[in-house]
């Protein structure tokens, strides 16, 4: 009886990280649904998929790479390159399907090149794929420095078509829960990957290669498995997935830019690890990756529903979750080693639960678990406070999804013509505000956000002092140049026009990036220090200084 139970437990153990992820996802969803009523809407659940198809596609490819004992940092560069290249080709008038095909071929070629370098020159995957990322991201800027918008009918149809869920939605009025075509594509990729990984010779080879710090690869080679070929194929496959993720992303944002998907590779790796795959390779399930993606999406959703927590909490929670999963994995690995050792000592005697109470690693995983529970509790408490304040107000989803207002640079130009020396426009942020301020030489400052106006009077000396300080920052030199990228939810786009000493110059920039010169933010800080604030309902400058 005892040995049998032991085997059953060992078999179950293989699924422990996976089931922990699944459990965590449903627990987080249940907590969210209890605290936030709007989250019970089935559409919110489906949105977890709708917001992340490119993450899922890329994570599936990464699961193959990690299982084979490698790593691929090039995904973010490949995704960005795909968005830019496809946007440029579509602008040139190429057929949309041809563009997609070309992108996939490009991704696979890049993957194959990197895979060959890794396999045949025996270079660390880390280094090769890092260089690949740089090359891909740099190429984006050879194609275009600015964002390219996509205006293509096929892309629009693929991105916008609603697939209603049968049984839940009303087919006549077209109302009810729905998913997008991209979600279906992502799920298809997942299903195909599961089949390939578990039911083909190639998949078994991938598992056989990974893990054991390279020793397993050696064994696989000695068993006569085609290790070299498989390795190249794995990276080619991931190149394919990256390109597909890039196509998906360009459909979701309908544009291409070289700064898209910055740091995306880390999210992908974190998601795969959260899905229960060992970063050393050889162990894990691509099905777990799905739940890794969902856990990531639910953390983001909870933070968005809360509305008060900044988006960087996502990073902290993801870091802690990784710690927990790594704790579980290393504990299981240590347990297995001990089991083998004890079997050698006394054959047939199952040790059962004893190792859990001994040694340092279980305490580590327990500690990690405790920290995660604490953080989740903290999130829960904070979110409860958030809802308390929000009763009767607009639902957080509507607020989080506000539409950005258009820029009013024509109005700014007319302000400058009417004698203003500074025109300052700040647009974006979590509430999609658009402030336009004008400072006049006599010290009058007028601001409006499209609804309200505010006024403030400072001395003319202060204005001239401000202008000369701005001039000292090199405003009219070539060191002050335009930069632009799509503002994040917390970021603002800025247009600053300065007229001084007969010169006039407008410089734009978005905070949250390194591209703009530091002096630009210095000038923005100088100006915002003087500006009057809007009534608190609009939640303006405070705590949001660039």
């Amino acid at each position, binding site marked *: 009886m005892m040995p049998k139970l032991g085997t059953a437990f060992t078999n179950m153990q293989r699924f422990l990280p996976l089931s922990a992820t699944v459990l965590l996802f449903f627990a987080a969803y249940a907590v969210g649904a209890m605290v936030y009523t709007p989250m019970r809407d089935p559409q919110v659940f489906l949105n977890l998929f709708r917001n992340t198809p490119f993450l899922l596609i890329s994570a599936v490819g990464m699961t193959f790479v990690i299982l084979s004992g490698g790593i691929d940092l090039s995904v973010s560069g490949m995704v960005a390159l795909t968005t830019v290249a496809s946007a440029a080709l579509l602008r040139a008038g190429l057929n949309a399907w041809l563009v997609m095909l070309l992108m996939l071929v490009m991704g696979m070629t890049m993957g194959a090149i990197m895979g060959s*370098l890794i396999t045949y020159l025996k270079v660390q995957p*880390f280094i090769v794929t890092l*260089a690949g990322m740089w*090359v891909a991201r*740099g190429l984006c800027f050879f194609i275009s420095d600015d964002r390219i918008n996509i205006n293509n009918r096929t892309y629009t149809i693929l991105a916008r078509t609603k697939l209603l869920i049968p049984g839940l939605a009303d087919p006549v009025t077209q109302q009810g829960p729905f998913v997008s075509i991209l979600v279906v594509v992502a799920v298809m990729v997942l299903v195909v990957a599961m089949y390939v990984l578990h039911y083909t010779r190639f998949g078994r080879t991938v598992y056989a290669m990974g893990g054991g710090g390279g020793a397993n690869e050696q064994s696989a080679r000695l068993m006569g498995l085609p290790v070299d070929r498989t390795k190249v194929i794995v990276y080619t496959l991931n190149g394919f997935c990256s390109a597909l993720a890039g196509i998906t992303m360009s459909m979701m944002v309908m544009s291409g830019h070289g700064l898209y998907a910055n740091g995306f590779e880390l999210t992908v790796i974190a998601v795969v690890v959260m899905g229960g795959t060992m970063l050393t390779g050889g162990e894990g399930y691509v099905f777990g990756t799905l739940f890794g993606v969902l856990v990531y999406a639910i953390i983001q959703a909870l933070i968005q529903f809360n509305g008060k927590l900044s988006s960087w909490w996502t990073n902290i929670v993801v870091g*802690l979750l990784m710690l927990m999963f790594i704790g579980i994995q*290393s504990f299981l690995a240590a347990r297995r080693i001990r089991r083998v050792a004890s079997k050698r000592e006394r054959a047939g005697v199952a040790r059962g639960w004893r190792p859990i109470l001994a040694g340092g690693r279980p305490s580590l995983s327990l500690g990690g678990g405790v920290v995660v529970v604490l953080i989740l509790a903290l999130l829960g408490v904070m979110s409860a406070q958030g809802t308390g304040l929000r009763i009767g107000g607009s639902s957080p989803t509507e607020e989080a999804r506000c539409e950005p207002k258009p820029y009013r640079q024509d109005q700014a130009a007319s302000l400058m013509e009417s004698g203003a020396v500074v025109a300052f426009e700040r647009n974006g942020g979590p509430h999609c505000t658009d402030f336009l301020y004008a400072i006049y030489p006599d010290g009058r400052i007028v601001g409006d956000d499209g609804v309200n106006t505010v006024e403030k009077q400072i001395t003319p000396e202060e204005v001239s002092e401000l202008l000369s300080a701005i001039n000292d920052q090199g405003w009219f030199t070539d060191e002050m140049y335009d930069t632009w990228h799509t503002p994040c939810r917390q970021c603002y786009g800025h247009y600053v026009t300065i007229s001084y000493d007969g010169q006039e110059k407008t410089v734009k920039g978005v905070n949250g990036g390194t591209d703009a010169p530091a002096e630009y*933010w210095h000038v923005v800080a100088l100006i915002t220090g*003087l500006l009057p604030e809007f009534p608190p309902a609009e939640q303006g400058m405070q705590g949001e200084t660039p």
Partner: protein
Amino acid sequence: MNQSTSASSLTWAKVTESKLFFPILVLAFIFLFDLVAIPGFFRIESRDGDLYGSLIHILRNGSTVMVLALGMTLVIATGGVDLSVGAVMAIAASVAALMMNPYVLAEELPPHLMSMMQDPYFTYSPLWVVIPVALIVSIVCGLWNGLLVAYGKIEPMVATLILMIAGRGIAQLITNAVRIQIFYQPYAFIGQGWLILPFSLYIVAVVYVFSWVLTRKTAIGLFVSSVGINFRSSFFSGIDEKKIKLMAYAFCGFCAGIAGLIASSNIKTSDANNIGLLLELDAILAVVIGGTLLGAGGRFSLLASIFGALVMQATTTSMYALGVPANAVTAIKGLVVFLVILLYSEQVGGFLRRIGGRQGV
């Protein structure tokens, strides 16, 4: 084969096998290219006794990566890797900026922020408090990595990935996601000051001498290599491999802290989102170009890592001088890395040895 030819082939082998050989070779190639393609690249001018020019520019802009590479060399030599240095830089910068200018987090902006900015010595805490505290915080970050790797027995890449992802969040937490401006002139001197040469270079020199003494004048360097080559047998020969690893990661955190201070004083803000972003990759590449084996560890050369960092920076600066747009330079950098990979491959190594052999014959 007579005495002299075998001696010459021996020297050739010695030269090609030195860890300094490839970095200097690549650097020479880059400079040769500059000599032909960019007129005036090597011109150095003196303004008020301070030196300026492209070469000085390379040294100054490469200083953060050089410092990072020193710490990273020891970690990689123990067979590990530290992905979190960029995030630790951001944490150190945030701590330093917050200590100098905590007013930003106040509910209301101070009314006379303008006049405070005008005072170049305006600060909340003096420099001799700011720097040690920021460095201690970064050493703690390094110790955390070391604990996970040495005592938690977690794969280094995974263990440091945790802090890499969470670290930026922590830095945002410290500054409440505000980009803190730094007005304190003495702090700005760290990254922007010149004493004939850029001041940050002297910092690099001090850290280099310190780590050189640490690894070459004490047994620690030997221990680090032996842990990297085989940690089990070093344990059996009486080396406390866990403590050595812990020390390496703590030192790497310390170096990341210094780099964070240089970077933040250079742009005079704490930019938790962007300080040191992806710099861990530059640092790791610098070490790899310097010939220390990533993943395997073992023998290392601090000077070669410094040259590795210079190779990266020289590439970037040359491309800027040629007028390549800033964002596109990464592509060239990637190609240089591919070139270096080819140079380091066994095939090319064998080819070089054959050349040496032919010379001998």
